């Protein structure tokens, strides 16, 4: 069991934006005391918001109990209760919000609404020790380049249509090899490069034309070559826009967060780019790459210290809560 000094703050955090229901407990000294996550896996097809929400309600009590046990703390030891307030699927978000409100009211402790995207960044900063990075946030549903400028995480670039992860997943599934990392594994045996639309507009990217073009070539060219072409094109677009953002924001660190941060080839490309600019690359460790409760708990700690808490009346979920709408006051305190 971890010993906690009496002046340390403890926050419990609940993640429930999509398929994951997670409960984490973090302390103000930067320790993650618990990280318990349950992922809803549909029997077939994509995620249905209502079914995922039902899964979350069923699993909530169990996840809470396990997190408290893992951390070895009693509910009364908590100093705040955080939850992901958005962005995400409404029905899923409401489960987490309801649970968080109930606990906060019962314990008489502050309620903290955390922006899910901010939490991905903050857990990355905590786990890697980088201070002021340009962040590439790439996951199944998200593609954005962001950096802290003037009180907030500003969106410097983003996808104009589908997410990078989504593009590769859909391609892999339609090609019959399954989602990532399958396309990247096939790409390693690729030899010939087939040109695909490369759409970079300033710091923004677009993948839908590229996906359509790649799907059209299915069956006409070697699959390994097509996998090579699509992964190289997608990663190059991301690396190029990241390079622009790095120069624009005048930063020296790069942080990769989200599921696609696991891609070896993408990391390799970004590291090569970083060398040109004497920048350092940090990657979120795998246990915090996907959605998880710990990231909400840790961001909750930061918000509690900065005084960013909520009254119950203000705690309605925000399914379309953009990253740049969230204030990051703890950054102004140098945290």
């Amino acid at each position, binding site marked *: 069991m971890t010993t906690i000094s009496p002046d340390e703050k403890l926050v419990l955090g609940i993640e429930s934006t999509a398929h994951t229901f997670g409960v984490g407990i973090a302390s103000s000294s930067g320790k993650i005391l618990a990280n318990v996550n349950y992922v809803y896996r549909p029997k077939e097809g994509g995620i249905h918001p209502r079914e995922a929400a039902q899964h979350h309600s069923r699993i909530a009590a169990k996840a809470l109990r396990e997190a408290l046990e893992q951390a070895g703390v009693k509910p009364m030891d908590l100093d705040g209760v955080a939850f992901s307030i958005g962005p995400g699927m409404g029905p899923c978000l409401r489960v987490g919000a309801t649970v968080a409100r109930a606990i906060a009211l019962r314990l008489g402790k502050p309620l903290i609404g955390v922006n899910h995207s901010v939490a991905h960044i903050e857990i990355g900063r905590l786990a890697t020790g980088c201070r002021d990075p340009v962040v590439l946030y790439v996951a199944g549903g998200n593609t954005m380049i962001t950096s802290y400028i003037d009180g*907030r995480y*500003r969106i410097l670039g983003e996808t104009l249509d589908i997410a990078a992860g989504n593009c590769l997943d859909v391609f892999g599934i339609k090609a019959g090899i399954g989602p990532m990392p399958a396309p990247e594994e096939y790409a390693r045996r690729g030899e010939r*490069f087939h040109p695909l639309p490369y759409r970079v507009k*300033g710091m923004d990217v677009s993948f839908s034309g590229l996906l359509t073009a790649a799907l059209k070539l299915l069956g006409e060219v070697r699959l390994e070559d097509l996998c090579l072409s699509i992964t*190289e094109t997608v990663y190059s677009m991301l*690396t190029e826009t990241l*390079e622009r953002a790095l*120069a624009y924001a005048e930063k020296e660190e790069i942080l990769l967060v989200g599921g696609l941060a696991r891609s070896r080839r993408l990391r390799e490309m970004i590291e090569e780019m970083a060398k040109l600019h004497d920048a350092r690359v940090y990657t979120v460790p795998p246990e915090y790459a996907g959605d998880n409760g710990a990231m909400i708990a840790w961001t909750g700690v930061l918000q509690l210290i900065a005084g960013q808490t909520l009254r119950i009346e203000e705690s309605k979920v925000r399914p379309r809560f953009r990253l*740049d709408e969230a204030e990051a006051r703890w950054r102004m305190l140098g945290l």
Partner: protein
Amino acid sequence: MENARSIGGRVMIGERLEVIRVGAEAVVSRLEWNGFKMVSKHRVPKPYRFPELDRLVRDRRTLHEARVIMNLRRLGIPCPAILLMDRSEATLYLQLIEGVELKKALDSLPVEEVERLANMLGRIVGRMHRGGIAHGDLTTSNIMLDRMENLYLIDFGLSTITNDPEELAVDIHLLDRSLESVHHRLRAVFMRSFLKGYAAAAGMDFLQALIEKVKEIRSRGRYVEERRKRY
């Protein structure tokens, strides 16, 4: 090629005098070739990109920029003329505009001169938009003022050949934003004359439709403060 030489492993004509700009994807240098002054815009290879893809991207962008400049010259839009294109090196050789960036000149000019230039710019941009070209990065750093007090547009790396009001409106939005951040004091005066000139070249109805688009872009702008200002 006469007087050709290798600089940093690549063939360049003329003698490089100085590097003017290092952008995200290109290096612009001033050079002299047999007493003739010009600039080169070289799209640098990116070592992280798959070699074939890298060549393709640089070639396509060089070609695209050349095509846009040809169209602009045909429309009579003041911009540097293309002297030579070297596709194997992804390099354009362009007319040298001897002048300064509008960004650097604007704050020291008398108000009447600011109004005259803004009106002139409005006419240029209005004509360009009517001709179906969006600059894509229209800020005061991409507008040159020469010694004869004429304006030129430069850097068409992000331009598009389009009639989409959305893309055209982005030009006006970016220009306004660059004035707001760098020349706050002159913004209102400048934009008023700019829009007058624009309407004279493109027509009032065309401008009105675009202004609606500009407002829309602002309202869904990335920076929340901008959105808040409207409420």
